[in-house]
């Protein structure tokens, strides 16, 4: 399996990259590590005549501690760099753990967080995780910056909210509230995850103040499940409430046809893993 012919461009700034993408239109796309794009092109699932390489663009790479406990990850930061970043491990060790299971050591060494989010493969971990923590995605075009909440970034199958010529430049994780627990569970049947569940619980006193439950890899896009049933839960009643919440999430998700697993079974896995993720997040938050 070989690649079809195309032209390569190596801009040095976001503005230049953005201009190129706008001018070249639909026959062009950005790439960084290429671990998802080049594979898709080899498989004949997509094709482009122009590839805009972002690896030489200034300012897209690296992890920084922002003000007020914010964590800023450049879009062209590799998965491996995110996984091993001291700042990520300190602020969001669960993210480091989640990233360590993505694909394999080679894809993590070359593939980038931004590339993963922009490719928008349904069977994926990072987008769901970022939705659970309430991350924000910084995008730029023509010197204009806008911030899209993670929950609004993916818009469809392999589709994002990026406008033509717009680049994802950074991912920002908010300062982690006190007494917040996070859990990410994934199950794979073949190479990509079949189900992922991410739960974040924040306690105030002995009760749940905030909760997010994101089901990923099952539908076209991650599902922000309804977690309102958990608000105010305490140790005494968390178990039945989380079971109910998990059941509801399973009922609400829309499993994509999958060669390996039926929708019924995928929904069942959602109930199991959602319950486990919620319980783990709760225990971590309460600790």
């Amino acid at each position: 399996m070989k690649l079809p012919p195309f032209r390569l461009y190596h801009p040095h700034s976001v503005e230049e990259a953005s201009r190129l993408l706008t001018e070249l239109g639909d026959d062009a796309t950005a790439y960084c590590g290429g671990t998802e794009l080049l594979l898709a092109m080899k498989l004949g699932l997509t094709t482009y005549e122009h590839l805009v390489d972002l690896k030489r663009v200034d300012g897209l790479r690296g992890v920084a501690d922002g003000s007020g406990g914010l964590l800023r990850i450049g879009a062209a930061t590799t998965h491996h760099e995110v996984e091993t970043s001291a700042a990520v491990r300190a602020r969001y060790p669960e993210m480091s753990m989640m990233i360590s299971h993505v694909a394999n050591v080679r894809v993590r060494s070359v593939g980038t967080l931004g590339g993963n989010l922009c490719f928008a493969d349904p069977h994926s971990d990072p987008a769901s995780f970022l939705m659970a923590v309430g991350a924000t995605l910084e995008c730029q075009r023509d010197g204009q910056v806008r911030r899209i909440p993670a929950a609004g970034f993916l818009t469809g199958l392999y589709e994002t909210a990026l406008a033509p010529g717009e680049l994802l430049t950074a991912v920002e994780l908010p300062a982690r509230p006190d007494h917040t627990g996070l859990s990410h569970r994934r199950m794979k049947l073949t190479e990509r995850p079949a189900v992922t569940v991410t739960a974040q619980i924040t306690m105030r006193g002995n009760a749940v103040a905030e909760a997010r439950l994101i089901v990923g890899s099952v539908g076209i896009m991650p599902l922000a499940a309804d977690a309102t049933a958990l608000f105010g839960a305490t140790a005494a009643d968390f178990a039945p409430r989380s079971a109910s919440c998990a059941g509801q999430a399973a009922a609400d998700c829309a499993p994509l046809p999958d060669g390996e697993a039926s929708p019924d079974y995928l929904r069942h896995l959602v109930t199991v893993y959602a319950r486990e993720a919620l319980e783990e997040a709760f225990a971590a938050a309460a600790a």
Partner: protein
Amino acid sequence: MTERVQATINGGHFEGEVAPQELLLDFLRDRLGLTGTKQSCEVEVCGACTVLVDGNPVSSCCFLAADIDSREVETIEGLVGSDFHRRAVEAFMRHAAVQCGFCTPGMLLTAKALAGRGLDGGRGAIAVAMNGNLCRCTGYHSILDSLTELLGDPA
């Protein structure tokens, strides 16, 4: 339209033109005659095509030759002769951890990258880190024994 590439390959300087769509695997095997790197699954899963770029393991089957510009590439041919390779050979020979040999170069290069990153944790951590390198012959047991000696914490 070609891409001009300057890179260090196995310690030697390379300068030349590559087609934009040329895959690093084909460039190494067909252009440079470095056939130690193997083609197997072609979808980044098996690791037989692993080479190191700036010390990082990459699937050369899904990596552009153009993207090695200004970088250092190491293949199995470059690894041979190093102290790491000597120790790896000793361990793999002692445990008979080579059968058909097709996965072997990829295993060794990945192990070198992990050593460079300071992998700690012993046998279990090595198995997890190596999970992206497939072998169909050995059942992994002898490879894991070899790598535990090669990479594991002696204490």
